[in-house]
């Protein structure tokens, strides 16, 4: 969880890397340049050569996807007659019905940004691998883009819900640590206020889907700008962040963090070792439970029961007795428990 982590930044096909192996990179640094195809234009290739449409593929000089300079031969027949590329661009597709080729100029340069501090380890086809000297927290889900920004905490307690009112202009460009959930309204407001990303213990799946639907509609009508990511650390539903983890995040407020919503990752740069997690906890260890009715609650494993016992669902399994932090003692399937270990990562 701590030390250097290898992080793979995917670059779309056709993008050109602009960094080299060994180079140090910053979160906002451009790693590759991409130029999408612009509006396509028909070139009536076979008409211009006086050939039937069915001979289009026979006269084409390049395969689709090839970049051609203005004036370069797009097609040539057996008599040496040529159809030239009308501008610098890409041969996009062919239409055998009318013997035309669709060519497209390349659009503006679009940067591919890594969003992390690190050192370039490798430049592979389709990806740039970075060695990131930060700490990484792995979540259980998320949505949205890769973003980076200063880490801020917007709730007072791990189990508190992140309200829309807690998001103000001060959060613009930052990664906001919320609590146990956020509504679609809060997420929409955060995005509108320019928040880079939100870290939550949990969120209702419906709220997340509503938020995604709103973003999709805004994208379709062209009103969506900037990037935004959401990361879930514990689970779906109203689930507080484990208090140990929350305290660690709070202690690192002000540091640069990188959030990868779709991949469920949060890098915190220059951070101390975070509380670690380990499956199969031992008696006496602090644990966090993962399924209802104790989802997200922390406690201490006071006993691991011998033999198999039926959970309330009826499934026979290995059970542990947990003294939760609210004082309740309850049997929980061992498979649903993780030890939470402060300090160096567990084995």
């Amino acid at each position, binding site marked *: 969880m701590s030390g250097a982590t290898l992080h793979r930044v*995917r670059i*779309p*096909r*056709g993008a050109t890397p602009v960094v080299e192996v060994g180079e140090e990179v910053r979160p906002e640094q451009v790693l590759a340049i991409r130029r*999408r*195809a*612009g*509006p*396509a234009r028909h070139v009536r290739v076979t008409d211009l050569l006086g050939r039937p449409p069915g001979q289009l*593929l026979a006269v084409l000089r390049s*395969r*689709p*996807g090839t970049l051609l300079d203005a004036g370069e031969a797009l097609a040539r027949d057996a008599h040496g007659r040529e159809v030239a590329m009308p501008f610098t661009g*890409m*041969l*996009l*597709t*062919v*239409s*055998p*019905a009318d013997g035309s080729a*669709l060519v*497209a100029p390349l659009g503006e340069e679009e940067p591919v940004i890594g969003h992390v501090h690190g050192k370039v380890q490798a430049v592979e*086809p*389709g*990806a740039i691998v970075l060695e990131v000297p930060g700490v990484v927290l792995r979540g*259980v*889900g998320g949505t949205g883009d890769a973003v980076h920004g200063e880490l801020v905490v917007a709730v007072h307690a791990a189990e508190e819900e992140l309200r829309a009112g807690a998001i103000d202009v001060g959060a613009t460009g930052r990664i906001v640590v919320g609590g146990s959930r956020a509504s679609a309204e809060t997420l929409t407001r955060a995005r509108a206020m320019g928040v880079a990303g939100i870290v939550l213990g949990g969120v*209702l*799946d*419906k709220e997340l*889907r509503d938020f995604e639907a709103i973003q999709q509609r805004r994208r379709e009508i062209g009103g969506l700008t900037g990037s935004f990511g959401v990361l*879930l650390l514990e*689970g*779906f*539903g109203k689930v507080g962040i484990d208090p140990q983890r929350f305290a660690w995040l709070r202690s690192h407020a002000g540091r640069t963090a990188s959030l990868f919503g779709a991949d469920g990752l949060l890098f915190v740069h220059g951070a101390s070792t975070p509380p670690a997690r380990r*499956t*199969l906890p031992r008696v006496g260890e602090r644990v966090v439970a*993962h*399924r*209802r*009715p*104790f*989802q997200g609650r922390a406690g201490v494993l006071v006993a691991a029961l011998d033999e*198999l016992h*039926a*959970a*309330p*669902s*009826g*499934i*026979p*399994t*290995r059970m542990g007795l947990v003294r939760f932090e609210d004082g309740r003692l309850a049997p*929980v*399937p061992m*498979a*649903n428990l993780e030890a939470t270990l402060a300090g160096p990562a567990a084995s």
Partner: protein
Amino acid sequence: MNERPVARDAVEERPRVAAEMTLLVDAGSAWTKAAVVARSRGRWRLAAHVAQPTAWGEAELRSSLVARLVGVVDRRVADRLPELLAVAPRISCHTPRRAGRLALGAVSAELSGASARRAAESAGWTVEVSATADDGRSLVDRVAALQDAEVDAWLLCGGFDAAGADQALEMASLVAAARGSSDAPVIWAGAASLADDVALLFEQGAVTVVDNPRPAPTRENPVPLRHALEDLLQRVVEPAGTRQHTPVAFRRSVSQLAASAGRRIVGVDVGARYLTWAQADESGSAESRVFAAGGLAGARLAGGGPGRLARWIPMLIDEMAVADGLQNLHARPATLPQTEDELAIMQAAVRHQLAAAADSERGEMEEGIDLLIGAGRSLAAAPRPSHAVQLLLDGVRPVGVTQLALDSSGVLPPLGALDDSEIAEGMGVLRDDLLVPLGTSVVTRGGRPGQVVMRVTVHRTGWPPIGPLDVRTGQLQVVPLARGHEAELEIELLQGASLGGARRARRMTAMAMGGAVGLVLDARGVPLPVPRRPDDRRAVLAAWRDAVVREPAVMTLDPSLVGER
């Protein structure tokens, strides 16, 4: 298996009692199932089995097995069990590390695209991105979407064999543009007449031509494409060999069982990541589908099926809670449902995934099947056998007379990983322990609503006949028939009901084998009809559940039926 090395301790001076044992391990993406097969009084028997989250590791697995074995082994070897297990021969299989990722280009989303997608998703691939000529996007947006995706291979299809289609060639050239200089393989599974033109769009040797899965608007031919994609998956994603892959090994086991028993068998293994459907005929000839998004953490569930799933839950659970429950299954597949509500959500997901797989295999099952085997932890470790029976019947809807069984100890996949020369022997020596019989189902299709559609008399040797029992459309009845017992069924079909296949006779006889649940007479039809009103629907679902659960045979739960002992 007799030739396997004997685990001994050679250090002791005094001769020590040896133990012959073999470890069978199926390492899943979420759960690992392990069983110890040991020789006892000259016979190989299943001595113990456990299931635990894969993340718990090897040492814990052995320790759990030792704990199970201590009570049953010879006292003279009890204290040496850890070392005996450590050196015991091991037969293992594992879930493939990931599914293949495919980009799909097709002319029509509904015709060529749908056929290709179905073939791909049942061959262990996921479709990461698709572009079709009718998807409403501009050419530029299609190219950008195809460029963005990270894929292992490209699948192109479109055009009918009799006609071809210029649009198919346009789509192929668009894919060629997006693929650029990538060396990922390309499969052309479109109109045969366009194959040469498509090959010209890519570098030499990049394109493999496969039969069109949609050769005509009203005809599908998915098998050649599925086989080509299975081969490609092995080459591209798992080049080290696939016999040890659980889906492959499971198919081999089902095939061997079918050949040795001379029966038509369907095996369904619902895992965290994949759903494997293996079907074999009497000769042992087997086909399997690996539904890459068919497991409990499958994308199909996560992608927004809570409303559909909630319809199949016999208790009132908020749809939002169902959605969260499904997402948590996806996020933490190695955890267990702790509450009844969570169990109901998980079982609804199992039923949904089985039904989705069965729908695509309905044609193959038309002639009926003799034995339906459930595997995977969600079925094998169901709290009661009646749960497993209900999941199998509701999900698969095996029309006809079908014996039902569970691979409760998870030994079928590891045994399928044995060499060709050993698999028959391995399964033969364990024949009594391989499967837990659940009983026999008689499932009808059709019939007039509310009318008696099936009249069944059960004849057992030495016992008075039961019945005739009248079963109405929509009803489910269970008749006690214990494990090891056999009965002859006299079945009369009424009101246009049928048992599928070519059998159109109104009266017939069939043999039924008993099991943990018994004989299940199921006249609910195919597909399962449920009322629209939520209250009525829940009442009907609860009645079906209670009809199976009330069966007396399940009142004392056989410990061998659960995943862990």
